[in-house]
């Protein structure tokens, strides 16, 4: 299956979806000009991946900022992962937040409340 590698910019996140190396990650800043166009290939990729996923899928979110339009699309991604979990696949979400960023921590808690999927919160120190 194809690998998606998008290098982040000051308004779009870095996205790595690599089933072969088992890396699934969205990180950085997300306020794309057209959120739907940006996230659509990612959601399509997940749909395809979910039919024959790796033994375990650890999906990493390591965002420092996202706008409200992105928040809706991030939920769509999480719901795809929730669907995989419901289908009996081994899925884990790792939500990273800078240790002093309560808003990003809270955003993770809110997503964890909405979707029914194993969800870990991980704090880290920004350099």
């Amino acid at each position, binding site marked *: 299956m194809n690998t998606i590698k998008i290098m982040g910019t000051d308004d779009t996140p870095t996205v790595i979806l690599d089933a072969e190396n088992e890396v699934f990650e969205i990180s950085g800043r997300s306020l794309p000009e057209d959120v*739907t166009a940006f996230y659509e290939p990612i959601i399509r990729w997940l749909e395809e991946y979910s039919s024959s996923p790796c033994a375990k899928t650890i999906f990493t979110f390591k965002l420092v900022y996202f706008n409200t*339009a992105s928040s809706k699309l991030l939920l769509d991604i999480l719901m795809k992962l929730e669907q995989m979990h419901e289908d009996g696949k081994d899925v884990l979400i790792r939500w990273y937040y800078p240790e*002093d960023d309560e808003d990003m921590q809270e955003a993770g808690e809110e997503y964890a*409340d909405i979707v029914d999927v194993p969800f870990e919160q991980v704090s880290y120190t920004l350099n």
Partner: protein
Amino acid sequence: MDKKNVRGFLEFVYDFYKSMKAHEITLVYEGEITHQITKAFTSLTESNMAKEEESNTVQKKVFHVMVECLQNISKHADSFGSDDFLFAGRGIFMVSKGDVEYHVTTGNVIENAKIEELTRILDHINILDKEGLKQLYKTQMREGRLSEKGGAGLGFIDIARKTGRRLEFHFLSIDEENSFFILTSTISRTE
């Protein structure tokens, strides 16, 4: 310009300058709000705040509020007047900085027919406490669909949550069809 007009113009520029100083306005713009404009304004304000050693929390809040306010104008400002004078996606955007708080103000034309609905949404947000806003955000994210323009009704809720303040808004009547919608968000520099 003849002499009298030059004088008038100079006075206007000086008055405008004094007025900006008096209102502590650090950024003002009138025109179409594009993605490029949004990026330019947020990065300009970010670097100014960093230079002035504003706390990270305040910087992040101002950034959030600016992005959502700018996107509101670009997605929702209505057109107004004749064809060669379009107001769609345009508006005024201002940032002011006082000793204790930042203000982000937007103004744009909206159709009178939308005032009732907009007022209802904003009034509803304004009566909610922190927990209520959180629940509303979650519901809206889950149930709200992205409109054609990419909005999901989340921007105002996010502004209220990030600032911890009521959304201050007013409508100024223009004519039978349109009004000018003004929204001011306040971010404390000390909390």
